[in-house]
């Protein structure tokens, strides 16, 4: 077989078939996907179905700590988990640029396989298209996922309520800085890796101690600040955050200093922020800290009735300032 992806691989003919059977199915293999039917047919537990989709265009596609494949799986598993759903299955669509080395595709598929296995969520279907050179940036990925929301769970960004404690599952800024460190033109040395991770286990543990999580999101693009603002806006509440309670790795803080970035706007891929009633906070925090991806959990703030829609930061030196949503791109400063 060729060493690179050709247009014929996406045309639905012999080359396509061989790509799926000899490459894709080496990595993605289960009863459902093996049937190669036009749709996956699944049996779901009765209840509310959660349904989500996301596309991934990260550049570079291979970055410290991960790649576009694992990122996509974890991202969709997490979107389902953020509404309290137990993920059941995901699909994977690939748009490949002509000329993509087959070795890269294999690497990405292995990453998908590993992420899917760790999360315990199978890839039950997918699609592969190939576009001409220059029409895509190596690989674009879309994943869709379904899950089941248990009875009694009602998590939504409009449910945050004054008195709620805001809990963050770990350090912020890791993913954004790890990716930035490898982007062409910005070359700084760091041991930092992306925090991409599946959070369904963490969320299951949290739901094991309480049904009353009000709101929960994973702060991806736009960072923690953007996510908190969305929730404040949708719930019509104010949020006060204690800067000194927000975990930031020294290497991330230093990179942000160097580049003039505010860590509150840097992307994360394996973190969540949860809004829980005050009386449940200790129990939730305790159980989170006992999990692999929640060991750095910290209570970082509170929901208040004042300044609805606005997020206020009590700074690490004792001042106060507003944490606005991100506007425009994150561009490092001049001098």
């Amino acid at each position, binding site marked *: 077989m060729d060493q690179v992806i050709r247009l014929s691989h996406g045309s639905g003919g012999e080359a396509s078939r061989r790509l799926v059977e000899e490459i894709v199915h080496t990595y993605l293999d289960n009863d459902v996907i093996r049937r190669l039917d036009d749709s996956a047919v699944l049996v779901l537990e009765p209840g509310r179905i959660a349904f989500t989709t996301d596309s991934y265009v990260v550049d570079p596609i291979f970055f410290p700590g991960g790649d576009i494949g694992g990122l996509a799986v974890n991202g969709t598993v997490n979107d389902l988990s953020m509404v309290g759903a137990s993920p059941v299955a995901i699909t994977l669509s690939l748009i490949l640029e002509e000329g993509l080395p087959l070795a890269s595709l294999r690497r990405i598929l292995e990453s998908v396989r590993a992420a899917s296995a760790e999360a315990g969520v199978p890839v039950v279907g997918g699609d592969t298209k190939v576009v001409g050179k220059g029409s895509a940036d190596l690989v674009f990925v879309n994943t869709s996922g379904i899950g089941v929301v248990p009875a009694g769970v009602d998590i939504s960004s409009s449910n945050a309520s004054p008195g709620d404690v805001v809990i963050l599952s770990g350090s912020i800024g890791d993913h954004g800085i790890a990716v930035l460190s490898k982007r062409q033109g910005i070359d700084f040395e760091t041991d930092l890796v992306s925090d991409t991770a599946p959070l369904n286990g963490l969320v299951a543990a949290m739901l094991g101690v309480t049904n009353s999580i009000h709101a929960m999101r994973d702060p991806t693009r736009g960072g923690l600040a953007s996510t908190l603002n969305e929730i404040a806006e949708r719930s019509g509440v104010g949020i006060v955050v204690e800067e000194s309670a927000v975990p930031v790795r020294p290497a991330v803080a230093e990179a942000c200093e160097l580049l003039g970035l505010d860590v509150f706007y840097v992307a994360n891929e394996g973190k969540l922020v949860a809004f829980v009633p005050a009386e449940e906070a200790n129990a939730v925090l305790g159980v989170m800290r006992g999990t692999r991806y929640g060991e750095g959990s910290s209570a970082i703030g509170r929901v208040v009735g004042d300044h609805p829609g606005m997020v206020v930061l009590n700074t690490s030196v*004792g001042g106060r300032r507003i944490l606005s949503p991100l506007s425009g791109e994150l561009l490092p400063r001049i001098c």
Partner: protein
Amino acid sequence: MKFASEFRDPALVRTITLNLRKACRGRWKLMEFCGTHTVAIFRYGLRSLLPENLILVSGPGCPVCVTPKAELDRAIYLSGLDSSVIATYGDLVKVPGSEMSLAEKRARGADVRVVYSSYDAVALAERLPDKRVFFVAIGFETTAPSTAAAVIRAEALGLRNFFVLSLHKRTPPVLEALLKRGTSVEGFVCPGHVSAIIGAAPFEPVASHWRRPCVVSGFEPSDVLQALLMLVRQLEDGRSEVEVEYARGVPYHGNRNALKLMDQVFTVTASEWRGLGEVEASGLRLREAFSPFDASAFIDRDIVSLPDPPGCRCGDVLRGDISPSECALFRKNCTPENPVGPCMVSSEGSCATHYLYGDR
């Protein structure tokens, strides 16, 4: 990083704040005119700690904000030339010129690249021998030495496709221009990084002739508060001197090597500042000897700039005469997504900072 944590120690900040409140008896109006100071003050929420009788305004301290449209239009003109590559620092690409910004020109096919160092622009010229790389050199004295170094490097490499459009401006002359024009500001927080290059000595005329105390400040929260305390003490004592708070970064007479380098490559010229008009001796242009590297040679026509959009009060904001929220466009027609003037575009512009960190 130990430095940072020590200078950000909440207990230290509390002590200095208490001393500041105690010392500040009169009503005083101070100006900081370094974009990084503007950001630091907001980011740490320092305004919420100041005594009420201490007013702090932001001055013309953001290089992007003070660059007049005419100069930006020159850079944009260059981006439209055949085989041209524009290389510049981050914020400049978003500033609107008469027709559009460099970013918008890029969206329409121009080759515009953000670089993090002047040497990156030289490397670009080496890598792309068939292109003309125009480095749009913006910044105060902080970045001018690295532009000078880049020109010298390009000369040493024998490059014929590397050019500099110098938009560099000098800080002390703008203070004098502000004072000559008339201002109610009573003391200045002077820029730490500029002074790391030029020293504190150039601010002596401001203190001695214009009787405004000057304190060169670092960028950590305790630096800024300490600098404010030093200024207030001078004012309360009736003194007017140049002092250095940022002792760890600023040699009183500046960085000799950097100054030599600047002097080798640049000569001083008159330059236009948004909100202030033309200011004598406030700009830097390449010396004759380096004219092969001067991008101005490619601007062979008069570029007519459109007047600023009606209602834009960037000039007033930059002089410290009004605060951003006093501009009728602030937050309504002028936002970071849809900036009318440069004070909103640059991440260190007064308006963008007030918008982001909370002037409601």
